[in-house]
């Protein structure tokens, strides 16, 4: 068994591009998933019983089926209902919808944790529902939803690897191709594992740091 780092150095433009695609999908996918999840949570909270039940069913389906199956449905099933997407777009949409289901549950538990009295007080002084969400719900639940949100961002980071299966040119696809073409699995796959490991650990640490900072902020304002 030999380890020839030159194989990777020779291919650095392809690897850099793959890493760029991975991080791009992750960042945009996570932002879209969080935004969509927030809308879902708000709709379930304020949309009445029927909306709540219908959206609850969708969330249960998204959380109960593998991400790979969802991606296959979007990418291979899409054209049959007139929705032809290139792999990158299908991947972005897939990861956003998948993540949204989990984020909506995070936000819902955040909503529930805000004391009922604070919302009633807001209603009493004549705030609109929108203002109550922006001025009372959001700030108060930030501390509560931060740790599970960071966790979810980490999960989505790892799910980006699955997109290599529908030929999204991200890092997993790039490095496994280099591995099989040059017969350099050891080098390519170790670099791949190391990339994810470092990024996931880094994100986790960053999340912990944000938590500490925010809790201090809250302490001084209390």
């Amino acid at each position, binding site marked *: 068994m030999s380890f020839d780092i030159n194989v990777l150095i020779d291919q650095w433009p392809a690897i850099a591009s793959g890493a760029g695609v991975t991080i791009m999908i992750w960042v945009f996918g996570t932002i879209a998933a969080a935004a969509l999840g927030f809308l879902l949570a708000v709709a379930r909270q304020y949309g009445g019983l029927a909306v709540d039940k219908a959206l609850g069913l969708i969330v249960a*389906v998204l959380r*109960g089926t593998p991400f790979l199956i969802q991606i296959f449905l979007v990418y291979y099933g899409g054209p049959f209902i007139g929705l032809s997407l290139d792999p990158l777009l299908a991947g972005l949409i897939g990861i956003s919808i998948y993540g949204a289901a989990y984020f909506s549950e995070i936000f819902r538990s955040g909503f529930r944790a805000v004391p009922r009295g604070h919302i009633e007080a807001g209603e009493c002084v004549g705030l609109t529902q929108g203002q109550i969400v922006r001025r009372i719900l959001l700030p108060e639940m930030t501390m509560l939803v931060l740790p599970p949100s960071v966790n979810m961002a980490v999960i989505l980071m790892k799910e980006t690897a699955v997109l290599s299966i529908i030929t999204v040119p991200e890092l997993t696809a790039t490095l496994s191709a280099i591995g099989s073409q040059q017969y350099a699995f050891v080098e390519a796959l170790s670099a791949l594992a190391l990339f994810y490991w470092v990024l996931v650990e880094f994100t986790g640490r960053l999340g912990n740091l944000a938590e500490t900072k925010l809790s201090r902020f809250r302490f001084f304002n209390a």
Partner: protein
Amino acid sequence: MSFKLFELLLQASIYTVTISIVSILIGFAIAILLSGMLLSLRRHLVLPARIFVSFFRGVPLLVQLLLIYNLLPVIGINVPSVVAAVVGLSLCTAAYQAENLRGGFASVPVGLVESAEMVGLTPGQIFRRIKVPTALRLTLPALVNEAILILKASSLVSVVGIVELTRMAQDLAGSTFLPLQLFASAGLIYLVINWIVALAGGLIERSLPGAPR
């Protein structure tokens, strides 16, 4: 979509369930060992366990499977792909279960252990009769959750060439041009399996002694 196709999917789902159950059980055995290492006071035991947990939780399962499947032959170990798949899933779930178990063991009330010491139980008896049952009771919900995660994650072993539920749906979609129906059916089967697991988990939880009424 004909019933014949659905039947093929159902047959393939047996592989999904079998691989998941075997991996969960092997993972649990490794996790007990790991959680013991994590909770020990000896640094040369804690550190390797920490690195193991951090690695298998920090690297995507797909990458772990590719590593195991491609690297084992390079270092001269030729295993059938089903073994590579089970090894990958087991190591991954072991890392998560170890963290859960560590939390479970850490939250066994000190008073319970102390009173066991008072009545003269040996450390071995305290471990078997007090710590393990209490920790298991505390980690059961997390274990059910983990089982569902592994059932879903087992869809990834299709990449190392095992014809489980996802791979079967993929193969049939390729030959029949019915991707929408096939992937939706596969999704439905996953959903039903996970629903059964969640239901069974809830039943076991309620039937255990000391369950909240």
